[in-house]
C-alpha cells in the first residue's frame, strides 16, 4: 500500500518535510500547546454530550431499538479556501449535469440516442422507473438534495467516489459536529475564520419551497420518515425541527382527489412539498411494493397530477447507480459542453468483457462493488481480503458480472485522529451536500467520515466509522 496523502502534515513528494501544512498551522500550534490529558478529557466530554442530546443511530441487524453513538473525533478536517472553490464549482457542474441527465432519460433520451450511455444499461435497470416517463417535475429538478462522496488520493487530488441522489443522509452530523466543536473548543474558532454551516436547514427549506406545485403562495412542507426504528431517524426529526415543519409518517398522510393531506388535530391539512426519506419502492403501495406499510396509498397519483412535489423525485436513483457512475464525465460534456472539474475514479465495468478479464486477473488489488449496493455492504476490498474471500467473490462476479464494477484501491488521504494510543493518521472521505431548486446552494462544508481502525478504508457508520467536523476556511 503506497503512502497516503495526509490532510494535516506535508508527507508526500520530494519536498515533504513532515511539518503541518499552512492551513493547519494555527491548529498545529494550538495542539502543541495543549496540556496532556486535556484532549482526553474533552473527548469524554463530547461523548457524554452526544449521549445526552441523543444523537444516536440504529444499527440494522442488531436487536430492535439498539442505539449507538457515531464516534466523533475532535481533530477537524480543514479545507483551504482555494480547494473549496474548486470543489464548489465542480459540485455545481456535476449535479447540474445529473439533473439534466435525469430529465433527459425520462423524456427524449437524447443521450441514449447519441450513444453516449448504453440504452439497455438505463432502460433495463431496476432503478429506472418507467412510471416517470414523460412526467414533468417542477423546474426539471429530480435531485434536490445530493450528497456527493469525495475522496483524495495520490498527492491530494480530489476524486468523486459516488453520487447519492436518493435519500443521502449525514447532514445532521455536519451541523451537530460543528456545534460540538464550538462548545468544546471556542478558542479554535477565534483563531480561524471557519465558514458557518448551521444555516443548512434554512437553505433546504428555501429549496423545498421553490419547487412547490404552481401558484401556491405559502406551501406546506413536511418531512416523511419511515419512523423511529430507521437508522437515520434522528436526522429526519432534526431537519424537520430545524426547518419548523411537520415530521410525518405514512400513517399521518392520506390522499383525496389527488391531493395529499396530513391528519392534524384541527382536521386535514394539505401538504404541497414532501421531503421524503423513504425509498421509491415503499412510497405508494398502490404503485410500488404492495405490502409497504411505510408509504401513502395514492400519493403517486397526486404526484403525477402535479398536486404535490416529492424531493427527491421518484426515479432519481438511476443517475447514482454505480453502473452509471462511469458515464458522468460524459454527461457533463454532453449537456454542458464543459470539461469535468472533478475527476471520477477509474472504473472497470464488469459488464464489458475486457474490463471483466482485467478485474478477474487483479482482484487482490481492486475494490469490487455491487452496482446496487450501499452503505459498504456487499463489497470486496481486495488488499484486505483473504484468499478464500477473494475466491468466493470471484464466483459471485462470474455468476452475474454486470452486477459489479471494480476500481483500483485508492490510498485514501488520512487525517490525524484521536485513538486509544493517541493521535494517529486514519483514512477519511468527505460528503458535501448540494441543494438544487430554482438555484443551487452548497453550504461550505460537509460530513467527513473517518475509518477508525488502523489501515481500514471503510468509513461507513454501519461498519464502525466515525465523523469529524469539517472546516472550510474563509481566508
Amino acid at each position, binding site marked *: 500500500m503506497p503512502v497516503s496523502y495526509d490532510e494535516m502534515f506535508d508527507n508526500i513528494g520530494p519536498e515533504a518535510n513532515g511539518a503541518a501544512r499552512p492551513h493547519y498551522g494555527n491548529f498545529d500550534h494550538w495542539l502543541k500547546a495543549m496540556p496532556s490529558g486535556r484532549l482526553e478529557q474533552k473527548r469524554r466530554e463530547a461523548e457524554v454530550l452526544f449521549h445526552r*442530546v441523543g444523537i444516536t443511530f440504529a444499527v440494522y441487524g442488531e436487536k430492535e431499538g439498539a442505539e449507538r453513538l457515531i464516534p466523533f473525533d475532535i481533530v477537524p478536517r480543514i479545507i483551504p479556501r482555494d480547494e473549496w472553490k474548486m470543489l464548489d464549482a465542480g459540485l455545481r457542474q456535476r449535479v447540474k449535469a445529473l439533473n439534466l441527465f435525469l430529465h433527459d432519460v425520462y423524456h427524449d433520451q437524447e443521450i441514449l440516442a447519441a450513444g453516449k450511455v448504453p440504452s439497455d444499461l438505463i432502460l433495463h435497470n431496476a432503478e429506472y422507473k418507467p412510471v416517470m416517463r414523460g412526467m414533468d417535475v417542477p423546474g426539471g429538478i429530480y435531485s434536490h438534495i445530493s450528497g456527493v462522496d469525495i475522496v483524495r488520493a495520490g498527492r491530494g487530488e480530489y476524486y468523486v467516489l459516488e453520487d447519492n441522489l436518493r435519500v443521502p443522509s449525514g447532514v445532521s452530523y455536519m451541523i451537530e459536529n460543528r456545534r460540538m466543536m464550538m462548545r468544546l473548543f471556542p478558542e479554535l474558532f477565534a483563531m480561524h475564520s471557519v465558514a458557518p454551516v448551521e444555516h443548512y436547514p434554512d437553505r433546504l427549506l428555501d429549496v423545498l419551497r421553490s419547487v412547490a406545485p404552481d401558484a401556491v403562495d405559502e406551501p406546506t412542507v413536511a418531512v416523511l420518515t419511515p419512523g423511529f426504528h430507521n437508522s437515520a431517524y434522528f436526522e429526519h426529526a432534526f431537519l424537520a425541527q430545524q426547518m419548523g415543519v411537520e415530521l410525518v409518517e405514512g400513517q399521518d398522510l392520506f390522499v383525496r382527489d389527488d391531493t395529499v393531506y396530513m391528519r392534524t388535530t384541527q382536521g386535514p391539512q394539505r401538504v404541497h412539498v414532501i421531503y421524503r426519506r423513504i425509498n421509491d419502492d415503499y412510497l405508494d403501495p398502490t404503485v410500488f411494493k404492495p405490502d409497504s406499510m411505510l408509504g401513502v396509498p395514492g400519493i403517486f397519483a397526486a404526484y403525477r397530477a402535479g398536486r404535490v412535489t416529492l424531493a427527491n423525485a421518484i426515479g432519481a436513483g438511476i443517475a447514482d447507480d454505480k453502473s452509471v457512475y462511469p458515464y458522468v464525465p460524459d454527461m457533463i460534456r454532453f449537456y454542458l459542453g464543459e470539461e469535468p472539474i472533478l475527476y471520477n475514479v477509474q472504473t472497470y465495468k464488469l459488464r464489458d468483457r475486457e474490463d471483466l478479464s482485467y478485474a478477474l486477473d487483479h482482484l487482490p488489488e481492486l475494490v469490487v462493488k455491487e452496482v446496487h449496493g450501499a452503505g459498504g455492504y456487499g463489497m470486496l476490498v481486495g488488499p484486505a481480503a483473504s484468499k478464500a474471500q477473494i475466491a468466493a467473490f470471484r464466483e459471485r462476479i462470474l455468476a452475474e458480472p454486470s452486477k459489479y464494477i471494480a476500481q483500483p484501491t485508492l490510498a485514501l488521504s488520512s487525517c490525524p485522529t484521536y485513538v486509544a494510543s493517541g493521535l494517529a493518521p486514519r483514512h477519511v472521505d468527505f460528503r458535501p451536500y448540494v441543494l438544487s431548486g430554482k438555484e443551487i446552494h452548497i453550504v461550505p462544508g460537509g460530513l467527513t467520515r473517518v475509518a477508525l481502525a488502523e489501515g481500514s478504508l471503510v468509513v461507513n457508520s454501519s461498519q464502525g466509522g466515525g465523523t469529524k467536523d469539517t472546516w472550510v476556511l474563509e481566508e
Partner: protein
Amino acid sequence: MLCRTANDLYWTARHIERAENTARLVDVSQRIALLPERLDPARHEAGAWRRALDALGTVQAYSRLNGPVVAHKVLRYLCLDPANPSSIYSCIRAARESARAQRGAVTLEMYEDLNTSWIEMRQIGQQRFEDEGLPRFIEWVKTRSASFRGVTIGTLGRDDPYHFLRLGTFLERADWCVRLMDVKYSQAESEAGDARSALGYYQWSALLNALSAMEMYRRRYRETILPERVAELMILNPDSPRSLATCTVTVHRTLAALAGPGNHEVVRQAGALMAETRYGRIDDLFAAGMEGWLRRVMTRLFELARQIDRHFLLTPEAVK
C-alpha cells in the same frame, strides 16, 4: 399539529406525571408503613402496601407476578419492574420513547431532559436502589419530573404542543388525586374510628406530606388535621396545585382553547366536571357520600379521556 404528535405529547406528559404520582404514593405508603403497630393495625400484613396497590388497581397484576403482598416486593414492583407498565421505570421509559418519536415537536432541552431521566433510570438497579435508600429515589423522581415541567414551561412555545402536554399532565393528576382520596376515604369510612385518633392523624399527615401540601394546610386552616379539611384542600381548593379543582379548571380551559369556537362535547363534559369541583361544597359531598362521589368522578374522567381521543387524536378522512 399532527394527531399522532398530539397523542405522543399527551402521553409523554401523562407518563411523567404518573411517575411522580407513583413516587408520591410510595412515599405516603412508606411513611405509614413505618408507623408503629399501635398506629397502623394492618402493619403486620403490609396494609399500607396493599392499599397502595389498591389505589392503582393493580393488586391482581401484582399478585400474578409476585404472590403475597410483601413490602420490598411491592416497592420493586412499583418503582423498578419493567414488567409493570405503570412502574416508575416503565413510565420514564414510555415518556422518553414518546418524546423520541416526536423530537421535532419538543424543544431540544425537553428531549435532553427526558433522555437524562431515562439514562439515569437505567443505571439505578436493585442494588443501588437498596444502597441509596427509598427517600433518595423518591426525591430523584420528583426532581426529574420537576425538571421536565420546568424545562417545558421555560422553553416551549405556548401553542398546541404545550397545550397537549398540559392536558396530559392535569388529566393524569386529576385521575390520581381521585384514586388517592378514594383509597383513603373508603378506608376511613370502613374503619369508622375516631377521626381525631392518632391513627387518623398520622395517616392524614403522611398523605399531606407526600403531596407537599402540609404547609398549605397549616397556613390555610391553622388547625389540627381533619379528614374533611384534607378533602377540601385536595378536592375543592383552587389554590392547591394538585387539587382536583385546579386540575379540572386547567383541563377545561386547555380543551376550550384547543377546540376553538363552536359547541364541542369534549369541552362540555370538561366544563361540567370543572363546575362541580370548582363550585362544590365539601359538606354537600360528604352528605351525599364521599366514596360514591369519588367513584362517579373517576368514571367521568375516564369518559373525558375517551372524548379527547375521539375529538383530537383520531382524525377521520373527511376533507372540508
